[in-house]
């Protein structure tokens, strides 16, 4: 299974954010996406998940253009953690996380008892099992972020696209969440790409990396060759101790 970018141009009409990007996320790989604010990381994630059309090029999912795959089938294979999400949900944390099963529903009306069990497991995995019956709106920022991660885990796609998955999390839960996604890649053959702002986390958890330098330059490849001190210093404009 592969998620490929072929000469992918991301940006807004009249404003390209990065050079044409070509890379291939394979099952079992864990990618870090690094770049300064406004360098197109979020836009790239949205394009990869088919939320937004690219300015040029194409996203391929197992060889087929992603725009030709029906929405529900796509949602079973590609999941996206949004950087920001609306907060108007009225229900409990468990209700919220169960919605991750929507693309897998077998009847028009609802989901199965199995789905709720799966949702509860993912809540435990994100260490918020005790909050299952709380109203989502009463959670703290970090707890809500873990609920959002749990929803994505409940969706159980083949490819996890994570836009700043570790934001709002305390150090212990940052490590717990990062380890969880690395394990998914290594042990359950999922493809993972995560936008990170900490190159040291990227080096310890990811095996591949994509650096977005702006409209004219980008680097993609194995972490060992891409995530070097000189590349990172050039990216952030400050020395990066590794």
């Amino acid at each position, binding site marked *: 299974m592969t998620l490929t970018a072929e000469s992918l141009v991301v940006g807004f009409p009249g404003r390209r954010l990065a050079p044409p990007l070509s890379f291939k996320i394979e099952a079992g790989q864990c990618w870090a996406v690094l770049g300064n604010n406004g360098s197109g990381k979020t836009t790239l994630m*949205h394009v990869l*998940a088919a*939320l937004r059309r690219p300015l040029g090029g194409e996203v391929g999912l197992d060889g087929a253009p992603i725009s030709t795959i029906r*929405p*529900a*089938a*796509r*949602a*079973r294979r*590609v*999941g*996206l953690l*949004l950087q920001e*999400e*609306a907060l*108007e*949900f*009225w*229900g*409990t944390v*468990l*209700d*919220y996380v169960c*919605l*991750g099963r*929507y*693309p897998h*529903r077998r009847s*028009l*009306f*609802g*989901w199965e008892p199995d789905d*709720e069990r799966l949702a509860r497991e993912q809540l435990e995995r994100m260490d918020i099992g005790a909050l*299952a*019956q709380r109203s989502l709106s009463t959670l703290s920022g970090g707890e809500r972020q873990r609920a959002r991660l749990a929803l994505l885990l409940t*969706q159980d796609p083949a490819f996890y696209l994570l836009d700043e998955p570790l934001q709002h999390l305390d150090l212990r839960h940052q490590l717990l969440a990062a380890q969880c996604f690395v394990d998914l890649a290594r042990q359950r053959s999922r493809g993972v790409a995560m936008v990170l702002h900490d190159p040291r986390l990227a080096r310890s958890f990811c095996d591949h990396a994509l650096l977005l330098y702006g409209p004219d330059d980008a680097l993609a490849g194995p972490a060992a060759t891409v995530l070097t001190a000189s590349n990172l210093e050039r990216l952030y404009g400050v020395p990066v101790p590794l």
Partner: protein
Amino acid sequence: MIAARARRTVFVLVLFAGLAVASLGVGLLAGSVPLSFSDVARVLTGRGTSAISEIVLTIRLPRLLAAFACGGLLALAGTLLQVLLRNPLADPYVLGISGGAGLGLLTATSLGLGYAPSQLAGLIGALAAVLTVFGLSFRAGDWNLYRLLLTGVVFSAGCGALISLTLLLAPQAAVKGMLFWLIGDLSGAGNPGWALAVMLVLGIVSIMGAGALNVLSLGRDKAATLGVSVVAAEIVIYLAASAATVTSVALAGTVGFVGLIVPHLIRLLGITDLRWLIPTAILGGGALLSFADTAARSVWAPLQLPVGVLTALLGVPVVLLLLARRR
């Protein structure tokens, strides 16, 4: 724990179904001529005297069913629009349907047209409002809900001004009837059969789509990543809510309060899952309007009040109590 919640959900649904049945029962018994339970039972089993049969089957039952259909349709429309616009203050009239219908009907009435042509003008006004608001706010590739909401609110304000003007200019004798229509009144409701059919169809469609509606309440982008075709779903919701509102307005004028408050009432009782909320709201809206209309024609009988006054008088204390009790 989850079992307790499921039990609570089922309990609320059964409670509202019971209220719906009770509202229909009370509506058949009460009125300017109070009937006994055995009188009504005899009529319903086909053994009543002709005078009582006339009251029950020709006068009370159609009006009750019209009230029930209106209430159910308004509660459904309110629920759908609150999800669509992500705005808890959305009600069936927020997008200008009441304004368009009112303008059409009141203008026709003040020009001296009869009952049926005025009703038709109201229906045309309502449909014109749906098309105008949708047409002005829809752009292919950029369907923006804020624009839809603002277009609807501004359109309503314009209609409201023209309705006030019409009321001022209309002949004195016609004004009271116009006010009844604006407050909401079921005394002129005709055969409710088609409204019940619309309620049934829209209710079934909405309940079948309720899973997608739940996902849509996470926001448009998140819903898209979970496989909902967002724009198509939103257009269907808008059209379904419009059809429900237009049907109700054609039957009873602009009954307020039901569509705004019934969905909130049910959320306050702990049901937030739209797969349960929608059927409960239809039953609750129908029951509320049936009770309110029975009161409207019985409490000061033989004087009849517009039902819209009673929906608010019955509903406001309940909702205020629930709000005050909550945490």
